[in-house]
């Protein structure tokens, strides 16, 4: 884990694609393991829908502190996801601002329910960019990008 130490700008963007048996649905995760003294994840599932459109659903954002920093509390936080269509139009979804702190070692979490589920969700054109951001006391109150992926 020393490779992460002292490299604040460094992050790992892991895209894990695990096709289901049908081959139509995949879990596509953005994992940033060195996000401001901890880690942050954008979880989502994608499906290849009719007309080549890409369905996006089961969207959630998680924030944890690393084991050595779990004495620190996550405070004044907010999750954000953004979908930018190929024509440049963007939709930004924000969780409510959470003023105050979680208990030590308790992760912060937000699920964007309106992105829906496998059986009921919207679809977006291929080439759309899906990204997640997070802000809290460790980011100086500013949104910082967790990562992004192109559909």
């Amino acid at each position, binding site marked *: 884990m020393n490779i992460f130490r002292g490299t604040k700008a460094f992050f790992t963007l892991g895209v*894990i694609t695990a096709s289901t048996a049908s081959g139509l649905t995949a*879990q596509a*995760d953005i994992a940033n393991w060195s996000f401001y003294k901890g880690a942050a994840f954008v*979880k*989502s*599932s994608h499906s290849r829908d009719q007309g080549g459109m890409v369905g996006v659903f*089961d969207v*959630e954002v*998680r924030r*944890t502190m690393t084991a050595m920093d779990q004495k620190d509390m996550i405070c004044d936080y*907010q999750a*954000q996801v*953004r979908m930018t269509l190929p024509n440049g*139009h*963007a*939709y*930004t*979804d*924000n*969780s*409510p*601002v*959470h*003023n*105050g702190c*979680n*208990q*030590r*070692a*308790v*992760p*912060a*979490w*937000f*699920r*964007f*329910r*309106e992105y829906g589920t496998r059986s009921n969700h919207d679809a977006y054109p291929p080439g759309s960019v899906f990204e997640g951001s997070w802000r809290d006391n460790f980011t100086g109150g500013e*949104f910082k990008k967790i990562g992004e992926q192109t559909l």
Partner: protein
Amino acid sequence: MKRLLAFAVGVGATIALRGLAPESARDPLPDRAAVRDSIRHLGQSARPAQRHAFADGRIDAPEYRNAVFGRIECLRSRGGSDIEILGPAPLAGGRLLTWHYRTAGDGAEASELDRACATELSDSIERGWRLAIVPQGQARRQEVARLTTCLRQAGVPLRKSDVRSVLIGAANAELPVGACVDEHAVLFNL
């Protein structure tokens, strides 16, 4: 041989000490006394528009709901048609409310409006309610057990079942487990 024996003793002592570790080390959630103290402190530091809810030393469900609805209405009235508010919807069997908002562009202005509305109208009350409904004692053990079951049924391997391990296990799960977390959101202090 002596070194091997010393090593074995060291391992044994470590395991024994871990077994005797205080419950608080494995359970980061506040106990009744901490909840009571925190709510009292929140009441003392709350903005004027929120103080009335703390007058009896506790926050109840209608006060929480009124505060959340007031916050949402504040955002709606100040943000106008540029902000699409989605929700509120029940979480954790109706013990909590969740909602979010959608904007075109980067949403920065909406976030600042939301922060201002929360600070003015609801954040201390919301915090007080979330603390008040953190399960205590046997109720906590049952809530954690149900969360553990939900996570395991979702395919998350959990080796330990203490509160800290389950919460961190959920956060590190590779699979989407938001439905489990929503159902037991009172443990995550969301």
